[in-house]
């Protein structure tokens, strides 16, 4: 019997392997931010931050923070050589205009039609959508990053989202800590299962239609 153990690290590790050199990537706040730590050394991705920069670098050393230089979470960051600053209209022009190759977002719910809900639990938590709606509507490839199961054991992947949507049919790829899924037509396609999980275990623990194609393969972090 396989026991589910949440692993944000595995999610971040696998997503980091999606990119190729030159890709412009926007990483959402929270779990997606971790992805930056696992990009292979031989791959150069260019990070965009929707508050107005391209060429996001690592956090500054303590004491070297610049009050005028933060990421979209308001945290101090640095800029790599060759990076650039711009205003918010240009920033979202870059996002909406398809100049961001890939965006990685956190999830409250994601469903088999590629619908994403991640900005609102009515009456409980309403942080607002920030840039998420534009990022999902505009990026070429949208990756939803989520633990496979909720703390209460329920599936984060749904047949149909019940929460207010961030975007309709926006998600292309879902990476959880048990597998890598593509949204195709109206179901999930399991492209990879992360050992020790098996395709059978994943199908059983996903509250949505999951197709397991013949070329579904295993992946180890």
């Amino acid at each position, binding site marked *: 019997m396989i026991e589910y153990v949440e692993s944000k690290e595995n999610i971040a590790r696998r997503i980091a392997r999606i990119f190729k050199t030159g890709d412009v990537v926007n990483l959402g706040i929270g779990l997606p931010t971790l992805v930056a730590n696992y990009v292979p050394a031989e791959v150069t991705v260019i990070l965009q*931050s*929707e*508050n*107005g*920069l391209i060429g996001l670098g690592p956090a500054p050393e303590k004491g070297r923070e*610049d*009050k*005028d*230089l*933060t990421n*979209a*979470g*308001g945290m101090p960051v640095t*800029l790599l050589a060759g990076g650039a*600053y*711009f*205003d*918010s*209209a240009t*920033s*979202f*022009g870059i*996002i*909406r205009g398809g100049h961001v190759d890939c965006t990685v977002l956190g999830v409250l719910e994601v469903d088999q039609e590629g619908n994403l809900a991640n900005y*609102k639990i009515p*009456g409980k*938590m*309403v*942080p*607002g*959508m*920030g*840039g*998420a*709606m*534009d990022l999902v*509507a*505009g990026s070429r490839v949208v990756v939803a990053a989520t633990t496979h199961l909720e703390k209460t054991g329920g599936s984060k992947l749904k047949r149909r989202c019940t929460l*207010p*949507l*961030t*975007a*309709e*049919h926006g998600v292309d790829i879902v990476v959880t800590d048990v597998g890598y899924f593509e949204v195709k037509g109206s179901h999930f396609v399991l492209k990879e299962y992360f050992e020790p999980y098996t395709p059978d275990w994943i199908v059983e623990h996903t509250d949505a239609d999951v197709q397991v194609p013949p070329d579904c393969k295993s992946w180890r972090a």
Partner: protein
Amino acid sequence: MIEKPVISAARAAKMVGEGAVVHVGGFLACGSPRGVLAALAELGTRNLTLVCNDTAVLDEKNGRVTGVAPLVKNRQFRKMIVSHIGTNPESQRQMNAGETEVVLVPQGTLAERVRAAGCGLGGILTATGLGTEVQEGKQVVEVQGRKFLVEEALPGDVALIKARKADKAGNLVYSKTARNFNPLMAMACKTVIAEVEEIVEIGEIDPDQIHTPSILVDYLVKA
């Protein structure tokens, strides 16, 4: 070129009338006009409509109260048009309690709506928000077989913005990610007040590197 008046933060705050629509620059308070906002909080002008990226940070326990957060706490806004309120629990509380009207706007749409106002456009067509709650009550237009929401221009009475540097004519240069909504708001409001860290002589800023031309700026406040 004509020089712009350099005024105190207190005088700037008085230019925001009861009930005004106020566009405030800044992104989680990075690039927000701290001095003018502090003066406006002290003055206590009410019934304002806020247009801003977010309601900034209200975390009194850890001593972090930034940007417009003190004004939110003071209940100076009757309406807040913003993309994010997650770092200011008081703004969430006011919304859920029905005390303050909160309109959540996708950040890129907010930027374009403010820009449209400044650029004399009626609005823009965007796919952002299609099929979500954001679509409610909005016109949908089809262009080349694709559907788009009509998002209307969002003009303001007063812009409170922050720049790194001005010349005496009011040409502005922003710093790093403190730029964000500031140049957009400078175009969208009847009265534009720029809080700046430094004021230099006219001609000292390379005209290719001016982010906001002087004619858009009415008053300067030294930060």
